[in-house]
């Protein structure tokens, strides 16, 4: 780990990463052992590593898997569900599953085909849908906090994109902890946000976590991967570049570099169909897409 000027053997690495995760959970006041945590799992390395760490550390962490109905050559959704289920069963953990096609009548690619948001790729539609469902399930089952497996590479790539486009509102909101700014919203946290993707993958491998290696077929050519590749080239020349980029941003934001967004959360209304908070005066973005 050149960014930390640190080299660890397997035993010490497997101690170090969970200890650091615990440190960040405490430092950023994410949650405590008294809280009920819902971990959004995809069957991939990051989310399963996160669930493993929280479970081993004694947190009350259940999982949520959202079936997107994405097939591709590898039957992606079916396979990622199986990885998530096997993980949960082996450890006796509770896994909630929501199958979008079964519950809403259409898969993500089908919804994307009908809506302008899904013009080129279904990724935007997928993001809106997952956020809606994660929040709904967390509220329905009384979870205090929703945890996702976003790592530092994910966060740095989003930051890079937001900076390239100077998206002030997004820059203001990007954070490892998203407070529930409305009674209908559940707090969101990203306990792995300080770890490189390589570290979470190493953790999953060394812990013997069986995860899906294949990526979503729609991620081919994704901008987020392009940004990650650029950042990795910088990292190769300047170890620690990604970490400095993201942590400097957090410090800059805390010290007031970015102005408060114009819109306030007080303007959120309630979707008449699903009852979830929305910035729209009528149906929320997810219900509009499903109804399209």
């Amino acid at each position, binding site marked *: 780990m050149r960014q930390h000027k640190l*080299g660890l053997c*397997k035993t010490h690495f497997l101690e170090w990463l969970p200890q650091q995760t615990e440190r960040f959970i405490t430092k950023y006041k994410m949650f405590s052992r008294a809280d009920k945590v819902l971990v959004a799992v995809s069957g*991939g*390395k*990051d989310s399963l590593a996160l669930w493993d760490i929280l479970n081993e550390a004694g947190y009350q962490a259940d999982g949520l898997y959202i079936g997107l109905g994405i097939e591709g050559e590898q039957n992606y959704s079916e396979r990622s569900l199986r990885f998530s289920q096997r993980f949960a069963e082996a450890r006796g953990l509770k896994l909630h599953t929501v199958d979008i096609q079964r519950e809403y009548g259409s898969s993500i690619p089908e919804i994307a085909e009908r809506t302008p948001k899904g013009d080129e790729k279904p*990724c935007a539609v*997928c993001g809106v849908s997952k956020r809606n469902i994660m929040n709904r399930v967390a509220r329905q089952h009384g979870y205090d906090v929703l945890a996702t497996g976003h790592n530092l*590479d*994910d966060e740095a*790539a989003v930051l890079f994109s937001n900076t390239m486009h100077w998206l002030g509102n997004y820059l203001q909101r990007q954070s490892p902890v998203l407070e529930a700014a409305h009674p209908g919203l559940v707090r969101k946290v990203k306990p792995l946000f300080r770890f*490189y*993707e*390589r570290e*979470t*993958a*190493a953790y999953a*491998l*060394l812990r013997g976590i069986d995860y899906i*290696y294949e*990526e*979503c077929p*729609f*991620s081919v050519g*994704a901008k*987020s*991967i392009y940004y*990650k*590749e650029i950042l*990795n*080239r910088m*990292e*190769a020349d300047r170890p620690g570049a990604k970490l400095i980029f993201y942590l400097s941003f957090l410090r800059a934001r805390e010290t007031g570099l970015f102005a408060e967004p114009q819109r306030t959360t007080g303007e959120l209304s309630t979707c008449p169909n699903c009852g979830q908070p929305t910035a729209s005066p009528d149906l929320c973005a997810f219900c509009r897409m499903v109804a399209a």
Partner: protein
Amino acid sequence: MSATIILRDQEFEIKAGQTVRSALSKLEIPNEAVLATREGELITDDEIIERNDVIKLISVISGG
């Protein structure tokens, strides 16, 4: 004195006696984007690749 590096369905023949980092650099594979394994065990970038080694790379970049 050669060894093999495998990344997905691609196979590369490389010189043994160099580090993983050096071999990846010559193949223009960013080491940040992969983890190297030998006989199923994770190895570091500083590890010397021995003759007849088969190094399997695991891609770590995800997203979409």
